[in-house]
């Protein structure tokens, strides 16, 4: 009976039914409740920190679409954050400080850059892809440092956060926090749907066996380019949020170290899970925050920790948690 067998199909796809609902549920509930809890103690500090986590989580989820679902390790993803941030910053400097213009501009500028560079980058594979995305990332970085009109090396201070249709709705940190949360939630749900869709299945198939996909009739590179453009656009969204959050734009947003950090976030959390990208960016930024408070050279501690995670927790923190779940919860 087809009906029964089709139901079974979706069962086999849901390898971790608990994880698919519980983990994102917990993440977003915690993020939504955080400002309420924070009101009792160090509100500003916690909201700033969690907001930062969410902004980078948007970019990390976008990167996971490429790393985890296309097998493309982009080492230039900070460029998209930078382009989004500079789009917002430059528009604001020109007196166009409204999100209805700045947000689409940030996303579209990043998508255009992704399209133009993606056509070239996707001609290469493996280590060459990493190198060429890095090269394009550095190119944008140096362009930004030479924008004398917009601060050059020193960056560009934004007078005020963007308005929305003329209303200063983002002025309050708490309102901005929830807008950021909404953006992360939208990014996450969109990405979740994307990877399960027909389009996403072609991406996943191409990661497993591109030759097979070609011989059944898919132009895998075309699908990868579209994914690259989508991922770039989401990076631009992250940059728009970052510029508005800090009210400052700097070339440092798109340094290659930042691109590396994004990859670390994705790997740390668990490649190809989307949840992992959010958890990874939280884990990375919180470690940075707390370890750097305790130890001056915090990376000396963080580096070995990362090696341990990669060696012993296959599938990152997400993989580790489901291993523990199996061992202790459901033996």
């Amino acid at each position, binding site marked *: 009976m*087809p009906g029964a*067998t*089709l139901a*079974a*199909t*979706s*069962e*086999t*796809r849901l390898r971790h039914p608990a994880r698919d609902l519980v983990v994102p549920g917990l993440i977003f509930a915690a993020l939504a409740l955080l400002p309420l809890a924070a009101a009792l103690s160090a509100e500003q500090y916690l909201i700033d920190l969690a907001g930062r986590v969410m902004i980078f989580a948007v970019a990390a989820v976008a990167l996971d679409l490429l790393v985890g679902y296309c097998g493309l390790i982009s080492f230039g993803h900070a460029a998209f954050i930078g382009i989004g941030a500079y789009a917002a910053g430059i528009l604001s400097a020109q007196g166009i400080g409204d999100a209805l213009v700045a947000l689409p501009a940030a996303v579209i500028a990043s998508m255009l850059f992704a399209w133009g560079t993606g056509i070239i980058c996707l001609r290469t594979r493996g280590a060459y892809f990493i190198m060429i995305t890095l090269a394009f990332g550095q190119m944008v970085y140096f362009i930004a440092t030479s924008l004398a009109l917009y601060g050059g090396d020193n960056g560009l201070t934004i007078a005020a956060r963007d308005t929305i249709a003329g209303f200063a709705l983002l002025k309050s940190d708490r309102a901005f926090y929830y807008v950021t949360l909404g953006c992360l939630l939208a990014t996450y749900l969109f990405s979740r*749907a*994307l990877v*399960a*869709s*027909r*389009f*996403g*299945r*072609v991406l*996943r*198939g191409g990661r*497993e*066996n591109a*030759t*097979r*996909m*070609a*011989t*059944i*009739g*898919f*132009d*895998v590179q075309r*699908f990868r380019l*579209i994914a690259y453009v989508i991922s770039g656009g989401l990076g631009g969204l992250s940059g728009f949020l970052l510029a508005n959050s800090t009210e400052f734009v700097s070339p440092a947003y798109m340094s290659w170290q930042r691109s590396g950090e994004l990859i670390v976030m994705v790997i740390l959390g668990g490649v190809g899970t989307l949840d992992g990208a959010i958890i990874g960016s939280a884990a990375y930024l919180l470690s940075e925050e707390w370890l750097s408070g305790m130890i001056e050279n915090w990376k000396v501690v963080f580096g070995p920790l990362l090696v341990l995670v990669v060696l012993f927790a296959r599938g990152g923190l997400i993989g580790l948690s489901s291993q523990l779940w199996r061992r202790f919860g459901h033996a």
Partner: protein
Amino acid sequence: MPDPVLRLQGLQKHFGSMAVTDDVTLDVMPGETHAIIGPNGAGKTTLINQLSGLIAPDAGRILFDGADITNLPPQARALHGLARSFQITSILPGFPVVENVALAVQARAGSSLRFFGRAADEAALNRPALAALEQTGIADRAHVRAGELSHGEKRALEFAIALAMEPKLLLLDEPMAGIGREETERLVELLGRLKKRFTVILVEHDMAAVFALADRISVLIGGRILMTGAPEAVRADPQVIAAYLGEQVE
């Protein structure tokens, strides 16, 4: 006489100074199962790879179903109706068996720029996929991860993927390679059923399978076609026996 489905004209391919495909001219007629046999290194897989578009010939033309496909990429040839299986099975091991086939259905359906809706749950894609699995006898394994199938089952899966493409021509590259005796018998029986509905090019070392299935045979030696003819004629040809079959018959 009907037009050939596939027509190779003066196909040439050199790797360095070595001619691996040397002036191959060949017609494959609709409905026939055309076997290509020859010793290792005769250039059989290279020839198949040129047919499916994975490597480009240096010279010559490939006409398929009336169109010149010599310069088309593999995906365009696939959509034209050219399906292939691989000597070393080529599947998506991490995907459920049914999704391996459903992807082929999806490629034909053409609308893969859908960003929403779970593809795995689409009955319109899964139903033809299950039908193809039914025909190759592994429908009961539809929801297993494809990587967990046995060798012979993976072959059957490759055939199901090819069937789901509703091809005009099936290219089978050594389907019996690395498969146990019992499973070989089952695959020969399966191909015996499939060959009635498709035009097939069969590259194979297992002579029992070739003589059981082929309508015509081309013998490829050193990149050149030594002869093309009916199985009896090929079996009796002294040149072929000397060059290839002699060692096989013992």
